[in-house]
């Protein structure tokens, strides 16, 4: 088990190294630090001297080494626009994005598990067919349509919910600006998280339904019926756990796409998170900020995937405990 986690961490480090290299290349190829530092009036010789001094003429690998060294100390460059370390700029937007993703994930779980399980248990039921139809349609509707639709009805037509921004936030230990602890923040969170959840819910419904139907055909479920175990126990104790194992793995991979979709959601709802920041950075060609965003997203990917693997191995006794041979 420990060696499994160790192996997983090593893989994670390797992936992070690759991400850092890509982001280094972006900074290296797209930005010209000298031009950022001095104006146009500087002579070519002065420019070259400066380049030499900054080490920009060194072999690429050495430059990358230096980049990595700074990165480990938390220095990923300074934003052109904000004139602040990129890491601070992004960190200040991180809570908004993570809370949005987390809320969306909770909604996905709350919607997909009951609906998927119901559709698997009663495949002929009219409600199951409706759920299946919804999940098929849901797969092909782009998120911005859903978002605009929700915004139009709930915010504009009925005026029930705010349509943009994060609303009021509270500071948690002075480290984290959270919108989860007051009514206004939660109201602002509802529409964006709902439309973000809409991206993954159909996939999860289909996944859970298919897995559950498979599990319900298995020998151990038939045996559970033969033992006279009650139906709710069979569905929710015997079948659900076996259903969720593969769902956790696939779900973990989908979690990454959630982060990607926050860019769209945040742009539509003007949600002040990393995704919106990234869009702005792209328009302003704020290269250090772009590359730092990529590293952040990469880290989030790697961390969630590693966590998912560890959770999977904790839940599945066949991974956790060596078997009979």
């Amino acid at each position: 088990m420990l060696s499994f986690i160790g192996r997983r961490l090593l893989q994670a480090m390797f992936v992070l190294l690759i991400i850092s290299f890509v982001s280094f290349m972006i900074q290296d190829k797209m930005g010209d630090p000298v031009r950022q530092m001095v104006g146009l009036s500087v002579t070519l010789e002065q420019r070259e001297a400066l380049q030499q001094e900054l080490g920009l003429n060194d072999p690429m690998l050495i430059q990358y080494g230096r980049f990595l060294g700074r990165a480990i100390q938390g220095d990923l460059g300074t934003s052109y626009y904000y004139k602040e370390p990129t890491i601070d700029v992004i960190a200040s937007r991180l809570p908004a994005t993570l809370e949005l993703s987390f809320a969306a994930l909770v909604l996905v779980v709350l919607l997909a598990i009951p609906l998927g399980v119901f559709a698997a248990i009663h495949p002929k039921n009219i409600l199951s067919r409706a759920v299946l139809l919804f999940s098929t349609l849901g797969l092909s509707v782009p998120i911005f349509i859903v978002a605009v639709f929700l915004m139009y009805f709930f915010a504009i037509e009925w005026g029930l919910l705010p349509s943009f921004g994060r609303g009021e936030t509270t500071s948690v230990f002075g480290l984290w600006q959270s919108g989860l602890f007051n009514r206004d923040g939660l109201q602002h969170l509802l529409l964006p998280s709902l439309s973000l959840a809409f991206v993954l819910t159909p996939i999860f419904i289909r996944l859970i339904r298919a897995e559950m139907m498979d599990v319900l055909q298995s020998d151990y479920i038939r045996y559970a019926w033969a033992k006279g175990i009650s139906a709710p126990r069979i569905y929710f104790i015997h079948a659900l756990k076996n259903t969720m194992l593969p769902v956790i793995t696939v779900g973990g991979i989908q979690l990454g796409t959630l982060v990607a979709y926050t860019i769209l959601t945040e742009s539509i709802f003007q949600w002040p998170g990393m995704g919106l920041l990234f869009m702005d950075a792209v328009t302003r060609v704020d290269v250090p900020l772009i590359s730092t965003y990529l590293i952040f997203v990469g880290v989030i990917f790697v961390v969630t995937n590693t966590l998912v693997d560890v959770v999977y191995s904790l839940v599945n006794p066949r991974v956790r405990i060596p078997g009979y041979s």
Partner: protein
Amino acid sequence: MSLLKLENLSVTFGQFRAVDQISYTVNEGEVLGIVGESGSGKSVSSLSLMGLIDYPGKVSADELSFMEQDLLSMPETQRRKITGSDIAMIFQDPMTSLNPCYTVGYQIIEALKTHQGGTKKELKTRAIELLNLVGIPAPESRLSAYPHQLSGGMSQRVMIAIAIGCNPKLLIADEPTTALDVTIQAQIIDLLIDLQKQKQMGLVLITHDLALVAEVAHRVIVMYAGQIVESGPASEVFSTPKHPYTQALLASLPESAAGKARLEALPGVVPGQYDRPKGCLLSPRCPYATDHCRNVVPDNQGPLERQVKCHTPLDTMGRPAA
């Protein structure tokens, strides 16, 4: 008193009769052997006794009763109470029949709790007793083992422990040893027969192993394409078979005793859903088939204790009647 009584029980999937009008009884303390090739309806018929035929399968019978209670007309909740306690069943593949996500102890205790109840401590003690009874060494430590940590033989012992946990009056064992190593098979059968005698259970033993049936069963049923083609006391059926199919099965006994042949006694296979012949279902494969056989379905002949479904039952010399 007869424990279980079936009269003209059929199981249909749409137009297909997987089990076709079978009748038999099982008495207290009796071992009934059911033999027949793959696809002859042995499993489907036993699942129907447990109420485990899923939609779109349909079960119908003139009578299906357990201890004089009608199983088909009783409320579902009452039937679920009998299932797994008074009538228990063990399956062919022990390695896939236990839930991989829960420990052995959890699964034994769950079954006990469902039917008998008791405190946590009582249930645990009882589970250890059961594991002891089925010959599992160090039972306390096995409670926390997961199914994948057990060998096939051990898993089958656990299934037997669960099955006898609620003191069933009738135990249905559907090919309990087919998935196991040959060396383990005899141990499991010995255990089953031991327990059957100890607890005076009725036992329905489904198997491909004719030699085993000859040895342990009081009575035997031979199934073919969903029908019972011959039934009677095991000794009689095996010494003087009356049905050509039984005769062919016995002729292939040396191989089946070695655990190799899946009773492919006659050339050809059991007719499936779309190729059932018009007359006698065995006629395409029967060495004695006549035109009459190919056109007219034979009736059951003889009393329920010794029946044969053939136009020309074999005589004591193994020749078809004129």
